[in-house]
């Protein structure tokens, strides 16, 4: 039972509710006279077509802000949902060995198509309760989360296991304790370490790719993004708060920042877009997960031919060329 609907989803959900009623009534009248039943069937087909047409219409022209809303849909699959569907033998590992275990960033070893891999990802809580009592913290890691990621990346490198990261965070946690323990340093060390990993790394943005807190597990050979996810230097609301001094202008900022998966793909930052189920990942998590599986297979297979040195070089070149500039000539002495 769906309990939450985005505004632009509502017409579709209402129509689907009517369709469901019609189906029930068709089932009820299944043994009535042929003519009546056939009329109901025709009506049913008509409704189904209307539903799928409406869905296509709504989703063909989503604004950037609507994509951001979908990426935050409370029913959207999170990291551990993909872990459940895509991997076997999951063994979660905890703690950074120096301060704590951060539940906002999970990690563990498991198997993908039988091959052992490391999986890391930010984990949002499904409810307010999960975010607080289970300390998911809305998927905003603290330094200990990044230091756990760092520890596990090094393990993966030592045991020659590919690294698969699921990115889904509004950003690293901006709190007093996080600052005291060196949030900036923790992220920075992840960036440098991941850049030098001698194993294949693939990152998938499954929801929100919020700034440095996302990038910390995003220095990968291949970056994939789900169709309705976003990735940028700052969240649209935070950007609006600075540029327009009004956090409610997130919609405007989302347009200006060009935050969506489609944008990132067109900018050449992202290597592959992964289709979601029609209507968004939350409408059919299983189908969406299968699309992710196919994309991961493809990318890991391509990387499996590279030597450790080539993997590091490949990653270096990927990021080295990001950032369009005009270079007006040779070094200049002053």
């Amino acid at each position: 039972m769906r309990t939450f609907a985005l505004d632009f989803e509502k017409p579709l959900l209402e129509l689907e509710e009517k369709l469901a009623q019609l189906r029930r009534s068709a089932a009820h009248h299944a043994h009535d006279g042929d003519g009546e039943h056939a009329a109901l069937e025709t009506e049913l087909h008509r409704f189904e077509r209307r539903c799928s047409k409406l869905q296509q219409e709504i989703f063909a022209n989503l604004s950037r802000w609507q994509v951001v809303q979908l990426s935050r849909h409370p029913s959207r699959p999170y990291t551990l949902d993909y872990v459940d569907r895509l991997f076997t033998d999951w063994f979660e590992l905890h703690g950074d060995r120096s301060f704590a275990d951060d539940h906002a960033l999970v990690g563990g070893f498991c198997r993908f198509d039988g091959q052992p891999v490391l999986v890391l990802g930010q984990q949002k809580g499904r409810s307010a309760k999960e975010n607080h009592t289970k300390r998911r913290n809305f998927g905003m890691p603290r330094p200990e989360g990044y230091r756990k990621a760092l520890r596990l990346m090094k393990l993966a490198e030592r045991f020659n296991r590919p690294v698969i990261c699921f990115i889904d965070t509004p950003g690293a946690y901006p709190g007093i304790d996080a600052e005291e323990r060196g949030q900036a340093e923790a992220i920075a060390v992840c960036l440098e370490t991941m850049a030098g990993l001698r194993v294949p790394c693939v990152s998938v943005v499954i929801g929100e790719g919020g700034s440095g807190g996302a990038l910390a597990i995003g220095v990968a050979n291949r970056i994939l993004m789900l169709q309705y996810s976003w990735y940028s230097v700052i969240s649209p609301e935070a950007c609006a708060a600075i540029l327009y001094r009004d956090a409610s202008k997130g919609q405007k900022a989302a347009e200006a920042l060009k935050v969506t998966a489609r944008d990132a793909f067109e900018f050449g930052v992202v290597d592959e877009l992964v289709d979601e189920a029609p209507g968004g990942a939350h409408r059919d998590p299983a189908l969406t997960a299968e699309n992710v599986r196919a994309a991961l297979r493809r990318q890991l297979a391509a990387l499996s031919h590279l030597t450790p040195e080539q993997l590091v070089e490949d990653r270096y070149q990927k990021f080295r060329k990001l950032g369009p500039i005009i270079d007006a000539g040779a070094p200049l002495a002053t």
Partner: protein
Amino acid sequence: MTGDPKTSGVAAWYQKVPSRKLPTPDKRARMEGLWIKCDGCEEIVFKGDVEKALSCCPKCDHHFPMGVRQRLSLVLDEGTFVEMDRGLESTDPLNFTDSKKYKDRLKASARTSGEHEAFLSGTGKIGGRDVSIGAFHFGFLGGSMGAVVGEKVTRVFERATELRVPAIVFSASGGARMQEAIFSLMQMAKSSAALARFRAVKQPYISVLLDPTTGGVAASFSFLGDVILAEPKALIGFAGPRVIEQTLRQKLPEGFQRSEFLLEHGMVDAIVPRKELRAKLAQLVELLG
């Protein structure tokens, strides 16, 4: 007031329309003539004395912002600085506009700051030793890092790798530049990756954190120094204090995110007053390079 363009509706040609933007620290110092009020002790001090003291307050040693070229001449052996990569320009990849066009902001910033971008880099000598060096100019769009700054920082590390010399970066930045969005974000990865390569040549990278160093710049190469130094009382952190206050809805403790706080929490190696910076850098280059 008949001469007031706001009330008369006619702007006299000789009248300057006052800028509504807050003056940058440099500008404020310039505008107020010979005397300035110290932000540290609130005393009125003679500007000439401040300049003589390396832009520090003669009374309380408060560190005022320092121009980027002045900064490099402070630490490098005289006449050894060779500027590199001056010709790099932003392409404005998002065609970004808020209240103003980003392109116009860049031009205006170049005009008022006298610098081409928020980062100045090149090579020079410290105590007779070659170094690859760069420094942020906070006066240029808040020292923010877009593709050009990211490229220049990356080249500082690449040049240091190629020449097998120490790398030194002075950071003073609000973080990654919003106007280049995801490209700015990727500069964090690019520069950190260049640094990862530099480690192989076994030369030191000394990162000096100035007021302020926050956001994506803090969360990449700034905090990756083999040795991390900070100027006294500099604001240093990942999230800016306003963001934290808004998130937590509580006042932050006195001294939070200042250099002394970071030293206390083990996040920087030493706090170095400006007048000692040159000697300390030379010493580190000697000890590690």
